[in-house]
C-alpha cells in the first residue's frame, strides 16, 4: 500500500483512531492537571517532506518534542510537541511552581507527560484493533521544529516520498498550554491497523 493510494474511507478510519486515541490521551492530561483540556478534531495529513515543519510554524520554531517508539504488532512512533512557553507552563502547573526555565526536573516531568499521553493513546488503539503495541521509554529534545521532525520524516523517507500522520491539536482551558500529538505508524502498520478493523 502506498500513501497515495489511501481512499477516503481509510482516511476517515485513521481520523477516528486519532479521535479515540487522542481523546483518551487528552483526558489523562486533564486528570493530571485537574483542568479542562480541549482538543480539536484530529487531522490526517499527507505532506511533502519539505512542508512538514510548517505544521509547527516553520523549521526554526523552538519546540519541545517527546519521542516514543512503537513496537510489536505496530511499528512507528508517537510524538508529543509543545512550544516552549507551553512546555514551561505545563511543567509549572504539574510541579506547582513558578519557574522561568526548563531545568532537569521540568524536563523529566515533560518526558513523563509524554509517556502518559502516548500510553493512553496506544492503549485505546490496541483495545480497538486487538493488536499488541509496545511503547519505548520517552526521549526529549528541545530544538528547532525542523530538526526534531527530521527524525520521523526520515523514517517515512525509507518507504515513501511523503509523510502521513494523524495530528491532534489540544489546549488547556486557559490557553496556557497548547500542543500537538502525532501518531506516525509505518506504512505496513497502517495496513495492519486497517485490516484489523475490517477496512482492508
Amino acid at each position, binding site marked *: 500500500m502506498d500513501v497515495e493510494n489511501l481512499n477516503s474511507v481509510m482516511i476517515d478510519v485513521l481520523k477516528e483512531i486519532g479521535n479515540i486515541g487522542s481523546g483518551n490521551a487528552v483526558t489523562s492530561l486533564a486528570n493530571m492537571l485537574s483542568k479542562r483540556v480541549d482538543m480539536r478534531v484530529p487531522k490526517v495529513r499527507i505532506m*511533502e*517532506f*519539505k*512542508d*512538514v*515543519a510548517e505544521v509547527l510554524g*516553520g*523549521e*526554526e520554531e*523552538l519546540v519541545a*518534542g517527546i*519521542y516514543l*517508539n512503537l513496537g510489536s504488532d505496530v511499528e512507528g512512533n508517537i510524538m508529543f510537541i509543545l512550544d516552549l512557553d507551553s512546555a514551561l507552563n505545563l511543567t509549572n502547573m504539574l510541579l506547582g511552581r513558578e519557574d522561568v526555565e526548563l531545568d532537569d526536573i521540568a524536563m523529566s516531568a515533560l518526558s513523563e507527560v509524554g509517556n502518559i499521553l502516548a500510553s493512553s493513546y496506544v492503549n485505546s488503539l490496541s483495545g480497538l484493533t486487538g493488536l499488541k503495541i509496545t511503547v*519505548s*521509554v520517552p*526521549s*526529549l*529534545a*528541545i*530544538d*528547532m*521544529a*525542523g*530538526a*526534531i*521532525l*527530521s*527524525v520521523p*520524516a*526520515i*523514517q517515512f*523517507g*525509507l*518507504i*515513501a*516520498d511523503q509523510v502521513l500522520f494523524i495530528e491532534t491539536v489540544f489546549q488547556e482551558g486557559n490557553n496556557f498550554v497548547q500542543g500537538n500529538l502525532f501518531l506516525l505508524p509505518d506504512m505496513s502498520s497502517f495496513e495492519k491497523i486497517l485490516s484489523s478493523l475490517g477496512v482492508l
Partner: protein
Amino acid sequence: MKIIKVGMADLNIVKAPGILTTLGLGSCVGIALYDRYNKIAGLAHVMLPSSKEIKNNENKSKFVDTGIELLIEMMIDKGAIKRNLTAKIAGGSQMFSFNNNSSILKIGERNVLATKEKLKELNIEILSEDTGGNYGRTIELNAEDGSLLIKTIGHGIKII
C-alpha cells in the same frame, strides 16, 4: 541579495551574488559544494545514506549518493567545473537518544559517513564540517566566498 531556501529532500544552486539556506537541519545532512573560480554554489538537504537500499527512490534529492550526483550535474550546467569543486558538510545529529540504539536513530551518523564516502569517490575535498551532536542547525551558504554559516540554538553561531 537572492536567498534561496532548500527544503528537506531538496537541493538548489546559485551563482554569486546569492545565498542558499536550509533551516532546522536535524539528522539530515546539508552538503554544500562550491566552485570558487566561477562563484557557483550548490546545496543539498539529503535524508538517507543510499538510494540503493530503498525501493522508492524517485526523488534523487532524498539520498546522499544521487543527491550529490544531481547537484554536481546542475552546477556544471550552470558553468561550474567539476575539478574546482570543494565541499563543506553540516548536520547529521542524533536528536533523540535511547539505550538500544536502533539504526534509524543513528541515521545522522550514517548519513555523514555516506556523504564522506561519496565525496571521496568523486575526488571532492571536504574543507570543513560541523556534524554530529544532538542539536539542530540552520545553515547558509554564500556563493560570493563559499563560506558556510551555521546557526544553532544554545550551541553558538559559527562560520566554517
